């Protein structure tokens, strides 16, 4: 830029200076020529009048010597005349036209002159001839001619010209320098400042202004320029801040739509994608740039039918449309909620498509329903337990009292028997024969079954936190495996000892805070379930239970996986429901897993899930918040 300005500067300076110098040069040239011509004519006039005077004077002085015919005197006079400025020759003819005297400056001029009465052979333009007749009274004595040359005049004029030129040169040079410097000072420096400011302003230095020092035209120009620059920079700042705002808004919009887990796609009337978020890119398996302009039904073929239906509905009613769809990919079932919101502005006819994966939501809803059921059962159980336990206790304990009062062991019995006149031994024989002790045992057993159900149901409501201790899951699992191995039912009915137990315990899994008996209940029931499931498999697969302990986020997780007969999906949904049992009535209470569920979800805010492939395997996953996690 400096180059440009310096170029500009030199250009303007030289232009103005050159112009002025040319102008001055013309004036000076004109003046010089004029004065030359005036001088020239003056010089000639002067010489001519001088010549007239000279010849008159000489003719007078020569008259007497010519009368006397004193040639010597004439020669002297002519000689003297020859010394005068510019005189080239003096010629004297007698009255009878005989050349009497010829004095010349230059030998070349000898013999070239004839009397004035005759025409001269020489070009008279080069010379100035003056003639005069010499008379004595009335008598003509002769004719005198003096020849003058132009040389001395030309020399004088040449000198004059030389001086004039030198004068003009100095004048021009001085004027040029003074003009150049003066213009630079007065105009160019300030113009340059204006120029430089404009260039810097154009380059983005918006705060640059012209320093105004004088109130002349340039000052007004500078002030006007500054005002204009103020307004421009204001406008630019406004534009920039508006642009920033737009960019920020764009960023916010992007952030908003990208931060949402929902799939969001904006389409036009032709169902071409105009805008989509990250989740949409994932679902479409296409980058937003590639997706733009393409038809949404081609990008999301799995949703095409639903989308077309919804868009049709949109055309007819013009209002919000939604539908739930279940899509199965690679045997994994997912539930989606597809919603279409028409945009309010009529001019564009666009719509927002929102797709949410509600699989987890549906699952949570199911869990919530399950939890509600549990709470209900819990409340019911607590109330029932209280009401049933008292009569049941009376029934059971009175059975015990009957048994005791029939036995011979009590001293009081014998006394009363004697008073009544009966023998206790024969009474015992009678009772045995009638099977009475058996009936009593049956009453007690039936009663104890009720009692067991009631006490199990009471676990639903146990939310107290005392009795909790910090436990390492690995230790807990070892205890429970031992417990299961020693359980009569497990040994006898399910061959628990033949099952291979594989342990995959991660090196560090944080401990949990639990009531040991509760977790025992949970794990024991799951192991029992697994053992039962494997005992009824007909295939000759070796029964095996894999127990895994791992850490997942803030949770300590136990997986218990068996290779038993597995469960169908519909059964998987029901196994945590109270009183649901796959076993024969009387064999299981149908409460084991539902209580396990209640314990883990209600008491510990954990999670218990089942995943199963029918005929192959079942895996229970129990997640309990680790100690130190804030869950």
């Amino acid at each position, binding site marked *: 830029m400096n180059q440009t300005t310096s170029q500009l500067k030199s250009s303007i300076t030289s232009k103005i200076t050159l112009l002025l110098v040319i102008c001055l040069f013309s004036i000076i040239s004109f003046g010089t020529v004029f004065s030359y011509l005036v001088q020239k004519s003056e010089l000639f006039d002067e010489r001519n009048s001088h010549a007239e005077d000279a010849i008159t004077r000489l003719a007078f002085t020569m008259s007497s010597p010519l009368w006397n015919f004193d040639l010597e005197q004439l020669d002297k006079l002519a000689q003297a005349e020859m010394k005068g400025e510019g005189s080239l020759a003096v010629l004297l003819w007698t009255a009878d036209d005989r050349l009497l005297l010829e004095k010349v400056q230059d030998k070349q001029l000898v013999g070239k002159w004839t009397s004035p009465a005759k025409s001269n052979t020489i070009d008279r333009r080069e010379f100035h001839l003056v003639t005069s007749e010499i008379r004595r009274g009335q008598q003509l004595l002769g004719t005198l001619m003096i020849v003058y040359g132009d040389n001395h005049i030309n020399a004088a004029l040449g000198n004059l010209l030389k001086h004039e030129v030198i004068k003009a040169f100095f004048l021009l040079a001085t004027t040029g320098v003074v003009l150049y410097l003066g213009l630079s000072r007065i105009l160019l420096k300030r113009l340059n400042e204006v120029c430089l400011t404009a260039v810097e302003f154009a380059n983005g230095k918006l705060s640059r202004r012209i320093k105004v020092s004088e109130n002349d035209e340039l000052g007004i120009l500078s002030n006007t320029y500054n005002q204009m620059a103020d307004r421009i920079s204001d406008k630019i700042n406004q534009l920039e801040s508006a642009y920033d705002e737009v960019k920020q808004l764009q960023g916010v919009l992007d952030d908003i739509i990208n931060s949402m887990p929902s799939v969001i796609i904006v389409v036009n009337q032709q169902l071409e994608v105009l805008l989509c978020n990250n989740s949409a890119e994932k679902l479409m398996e296409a980058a937003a740039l590639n997706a733009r302009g393409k038809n949404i039904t081609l990008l999301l073929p799995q949703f095409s039918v639903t989308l077309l239906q919804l868009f049709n509905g949109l055309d007819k009613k013009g209002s919000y449309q939604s539908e739930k769809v279940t899509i199965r990919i690679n045997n994994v079932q997912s539930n989606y909620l597809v919603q279409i919101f028409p945009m309010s502005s009529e001019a564009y006819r666009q719509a927002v498509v929102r797709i949410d994966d509600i699989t987890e939501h549906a699952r949570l809803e199911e869990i919530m329903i399950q939890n509600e059921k549990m709470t209900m059962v819990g409340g019911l159980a607590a109330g029932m337990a*209280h009401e049933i*336990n*008292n009569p049941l206790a009376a029934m*059971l*304990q009175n059975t015990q009292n009957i048994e005791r009062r029939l036995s011979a062991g009590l001293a009081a019995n014998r006394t009363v028997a004697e008073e009544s006149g009966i023998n206790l031994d024969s009474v015992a024989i009678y009772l045995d024969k009638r099977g009475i002790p058996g009936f009593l045992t049956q009453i007690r057993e039936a009663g104890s079954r009720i009692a067991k159900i009631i*006490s199990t149901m009471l676990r639903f409501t146990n939310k107290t936190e005392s009795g909790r201790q910090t436990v390492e899951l690995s230790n807990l699992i070892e205890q429970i495996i031992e417990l299961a191995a020693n359980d009569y039912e497990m040994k006898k009915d399910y061959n628990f000892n033949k099952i291979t137990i594989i342990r995959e315990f991660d090196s560090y899994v944080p401990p949990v805070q639990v009531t040991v008996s509760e977790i025992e209940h949970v794990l024991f029931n799951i192991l029992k379930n697994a053992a039962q499931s494997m005992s009824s498999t007909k295939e000759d697969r070796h029964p095996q239970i894999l127990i895994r302990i791992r850490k997942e986020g803030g949770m300590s997780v136990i997986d218990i996986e068996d290779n038993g007969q597995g469960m169908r999906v519909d059964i998987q949904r029901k196994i945590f429901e109270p009183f649901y049992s796959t076993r024969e009535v009387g064999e299981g209470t149908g409460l084991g897993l539902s209580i396990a569920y209640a314990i883990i979800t209600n008491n510990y805010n954990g999670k218990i899930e089942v995943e199963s492939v029918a005929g192959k395997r079942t895996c229970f996953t129990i997640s309990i918040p680790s100690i130190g996690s804030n869950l």
Partner: protein
Amino acid sequence: VSEKIKVMLIDDEVLILECLRIFLEDEGFEVFAFTNAEDALIKISSLTPSTCITDMGLEGLDGNEFIVRAHPESRNTRFMIHTGAFFELTEELRALGMTPEDIIIKPVMDFEVFTDRIRAHAAGGCVNNVT
């Protein structure tokens, strides 16, 4: 003939109260049965039973409050809880030296659980917090 061990029973359910009384009397204890805690509280200082078995959910004065108030009246009495619902020892009862051992949940299959403990306490003699 040595003196019979004295046992106090409190239960608002007459059925339970009666069958437990009969059982304990058959076992040779001297039993004082009450259907409410208020009456029992009045009598405890004069009866000074070796063991007092009380229900928790009583009308009026409940089992917890009864034990707290009765304990100063008869310092050598061991208190046991016989309850139909799950019950966790309160801080007050723990302070009196009661342990989970002293809680018997209904229905009881075999009353021997009472007789063993009553006899053990009577043999130990004095303190409540024998485990």
